């Protein structure tokens, strides 16, 4: 064919080279990050935020639906994991399962009320639900620790039968544990997005009316997308609780929802890996700038504005454009 090939924004079309670079960098973090003055827990935070934002991006970037309340599911994941560790059993996998189920099921049920709303109304209702969760965690002192957050739990070593992974004390091992969970989760996401079901989400994003007149039950697909996105976001939240041995009511707050949106948009919402790049930028700003000034959010905000003004498709989107040009 003589026509130039244009790469479509589907995850299946992503080049192998890019995948190789990303995973080579992620797998060697403990080797090079300290040389740059970073520490491994910081990389863990990048992965957790990246997973939350990539999960959110299934909705924003790949279904075309804007949720401003994803902190709710992130926070529920964290509280679910924390409460399970504190009151049920000192088991890390069980805690992750509990957190993921709590946030995911809450999102699935709430999604039923959401799917007929569109645009700004959808966003408003999602904020409202996020704030409801925030105030419950904030006020229910006895269970959640209220404003101080949930303390008094710690991630437990994982017993594999033949060996024990001491993720409680070995930071590098814990990083690789997070990386494993992250890899499995985003691998699953890529599979979903590259499937016939995933393509129907693109169709809804591109043109809802056309999708409907192909015979697609649009509401049901948006609901499924929302539900899947919430399960993955809650998984990220449960990892966050393990990372900090702490669950924070502010993790449920709309400010956190805003952070997830910023990470995604800065990184590039039409690209699969964009939110990972956004998370790197966000955590770097959070870490380096907050050590210099308490007004670090100002710099995050300025960076966000600059990125949106000059790279409206985000950093990854810009790289992709360049590669295609």
């Amino acid at each position: 064919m003589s026509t130039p090939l244009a790469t479509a924004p589907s995850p299946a079309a992503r080049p192998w080279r890019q995948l190789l670079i990303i995973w080579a960098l992620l797998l060697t973090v403990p080797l090079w990050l300290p040389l740059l003055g970073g520490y491994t827990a910081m990389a863990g935070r990048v992965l957790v935020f990246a997973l939350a934002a990539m999960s959110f991006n299934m909705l924003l970037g790949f279904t075309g639906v804007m949720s401003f309340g994803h902190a709710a599911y992130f926070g529920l994941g964290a509280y679910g994991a924390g409460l399970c560790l504190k009151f049920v059993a000192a088991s890390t996998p069980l805690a992750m399962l509990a957190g993921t189920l709590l946030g995911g099921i809450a999102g699935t049920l709430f999604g039923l009320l959401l799917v007929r709303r569109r645009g700004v109304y959808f966003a408003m209702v999602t904020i409202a639900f996020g704030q409801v969760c925030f105030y419950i965690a904030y006020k229910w002192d006895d269970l959640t620790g209220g404003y101080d957050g949930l303390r008094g739990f710690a991630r437990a070593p994982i017993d594999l039968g033949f060996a024990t992974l001491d993720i409680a004390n070995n930071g590098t091992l814990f990083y690789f544990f997070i990386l494993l969970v992250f890899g499995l989760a985003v691998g699953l996401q890529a599979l979903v997005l590259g499937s016939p079901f995933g393509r129907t989400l693109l169709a809804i994003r591109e043109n809802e009316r056309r999708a409907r007149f192909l015979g697609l039950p649009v509401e049901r697909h948006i609901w499924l997308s929302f539900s899947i996105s919430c399960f993955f976001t809650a998984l990220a939240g449960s990892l966050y609780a393990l990372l900090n041995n702490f669950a924070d009511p502010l993790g449920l707050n709309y400010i956190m929802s805003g952070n997830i949106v910023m990470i995604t948009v800065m990184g590039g919402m039409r690209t699969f890996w964009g939110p990972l790049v956004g998370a790197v930028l966000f955590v770097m700003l959070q870490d380096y700038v907050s050590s210099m000034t308490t007004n670090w959010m100002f710099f995050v905000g300025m960076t966000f504005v600059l990125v949106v003004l000059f790279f409206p498709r985000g950093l990854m989107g810009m790289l992709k454009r360049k590669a295609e040009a």
Partner: protein
Amino acid sequence: MSTTAPKLEVHNASKNFGNLRAVSDVSMRVESGELRAIIGPNGAGKTTFFNLITGFFPPSSGDILLDGRNINGVPAAGRVKMGMGRTFQITEIFPELTVRENTRIAVETGLGFSLRAWLTGADKQRVAAASDEVMGLANLTSKADRLVGELSHGDQRATEIAMALALKPSLLLLDEPTAGMGDEETYQITGLIRRLHRDSKYTIVLIEHDMRVVFHLADHISVLAEGRLLAEGTPEEIGANEHVQNAYLGKAE
């Protein structure tokens, strides 16, 4: 084909928007294999009539039958599954996806794969073959991997028709397929519609303003004016009809 009932029947359909009677007591009967054109001045209720047939909104009164079966209670998506394919007056496509992806999504939806998380090799081949087939029909094979948003208006229109075809409709409804096209593009789309009708035996109902296209393609023509059915007949009959000439043909275009 298998049934003796006409492909599409409309009995006394009306649609009111508040005080406006957009479609008033229109009846129509389209046989299998027929190509029916609906013409009429702007505001005659043609697109509203299409929206009633496709279930975009329900009629205020009247009945719509597909293959002899009353479909008044069937929502738009259900009518698509029953064999209605539709294109819109303003092109409705997936602009940031390629032609191939546009048709592939339509094929997969038509085959009932839209909730699948994966496809077997055989299913993948089936999807690819069906997608290639409709792209071939619409003369889009050479542009398969281009983003649809970057194509010419005529090719975007052809993509939309290809997507409708991907659903293997037994009834194809085209709302002004040549709207906004130059002569060359009009000629291409007209050729495509004629091939679909003559060679592939599709039953087609189209709304069209371009009288050359209408008289060239249609077996029968229905004329709407002010929401009512003014006349119906072969192109020769309509061309000779005085009412139609007064109401429409004489004045417009």
